[in-house]
């Protein structure tokens, strides 16, 4: 009985704080994406044009976001029946966009306005350990350029 009560309290805490953090994070992401919109990002290895390129430097942004208890529980239920793990989808979406934003912030700090060859790396922390709430890491990196063309 106490086990169940404990579980319920954990779920409630996880849901309440997790959702609050997620909503706040998404609001902040959407706002900052607007701020960094003029920094162009390309998946291509090389810039469209080398004309006027004055500077090239590695830029990167890294983020680690923890899974809350509610998300983990919902995902473990999903594990039994299969299908979209929607609670993790939003988590990873946040992590990817935050990492790209931090990479763009890095580029702006270095005085760059274009990033080519953008790549994303993900890793999960506390992988394999059973009864621990894990966290996801996303690292976004690329070659930042100061490009004068088309700007």
């Amino acid at each position, binding site marked *: 009985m106490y086990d169940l009560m404990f579980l319920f309290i954990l779920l409630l805490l996880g849901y309440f704080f997790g959702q609050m953090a997620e909503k706040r994070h998404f609001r902040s992401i959407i706002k900052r994406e607007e701020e960094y919109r003029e920094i162009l990002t390309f998946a291509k290895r090389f810039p*469209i044009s080398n004309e006027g390129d004055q500077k090239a430097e590695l830029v990167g942004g890294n983020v680690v976001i923890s899974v809350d208890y509610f998300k983990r529980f919902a995902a473990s239920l999903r594990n039994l029946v299969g299908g979209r793990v929607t*609670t993790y989808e939003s988590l990873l979406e946040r992590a990817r966009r935050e990492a790209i934003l931090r990479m763009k912030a890095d580029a702006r700090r270095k005085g760059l306005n274009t990033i080519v060859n953008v790549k994303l790396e993900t890793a999960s922390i506390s992988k394999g350990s059973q009864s621990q709430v894990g966290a996801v890491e996303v690292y976004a990196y690329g070659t930042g350029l100061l490009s004068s063309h088309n700007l």
Partner: protein
Amino acid sequence: MEYKNFKMPEDINVTKEHPLKNFFYLLLGVASIMVATLLIFFYSIGYVAKWIPFEKEVEWLQTIETSLDGDKAGDFLRELVFPGAAETVNTQSQKNKLRAEEITAYLQSLSDQLSLAQDLPASMKITVHYIDQPIINAFATVGGNVFIYQGLIDAVSSENGLSMVLAHEIAHVNNRHPIVALSRSLGLGVMLSLVTGIGGNNLSTNLASHFNLLTTLAFSRKQENQSDVDAYNTLLKYYGHGLGATELFSVLVESDQASRLPELLNSHPLSENRIERLNTLGAAIAANCAKAPFSCVLTKLPEFVRAPIGQ
């Protein structure tokens, strides 16, 4: 050519659906499947357990008693299967011990005769344990062990009444109710902790709580009724009449009120049903005795089995 980073729509990677809606659908689905599985498991294990040979049951019990002897875990298990037994032995004085042995011997011989009347298989040996406590209760557990409390002996007014109680418990053993109850609670306990992970390392405590349910003898109403019928038939065969059979019901109603059974399994209609059946049975006995070629008389209980005055 001009390049731009477009603003992406928000609902591509993240669903607009409320997370709780998704969660409750999942929970409901998984829970109903789990409950269905557990129910199937519960009933099938009850069915299968009947086929466990009685010898195996006894053997298993002996393994617990001997292999864990002197061990704390062993004491713990023994206490769970035979509650109050260890305590009684410890608190008994030498004089009380002699009296307890005498009563045990009396109960054992009565039980042996009743077993014979009930056509118990030769391999099924009933062992009666007497517990010197003023609790109105009796119960049967695995291995053909039947426990009778002093309180119950004082509560019945004749040997017939006591025989009805004994025959009732013997019928439980004969119908394999204890092993079914044990298998069910153990099986469910293991299955639940496997599925939920609740308990985890505390599997033993989990099992213990299920054992506890068993030892307080939470048999189903159907099993109780079956044992009542068997016990009454045993009485008819042993005494030639059913007089005194209703004493059991009054006793059981009283012990229900003392409520050593868990609330969950001890539903209220139980006592009421018993009172109702007490009346119909009483009428049947009276009718039976009226046309009997011999006189119906209650057999007296020997004086020494009553609790000494002042105790």
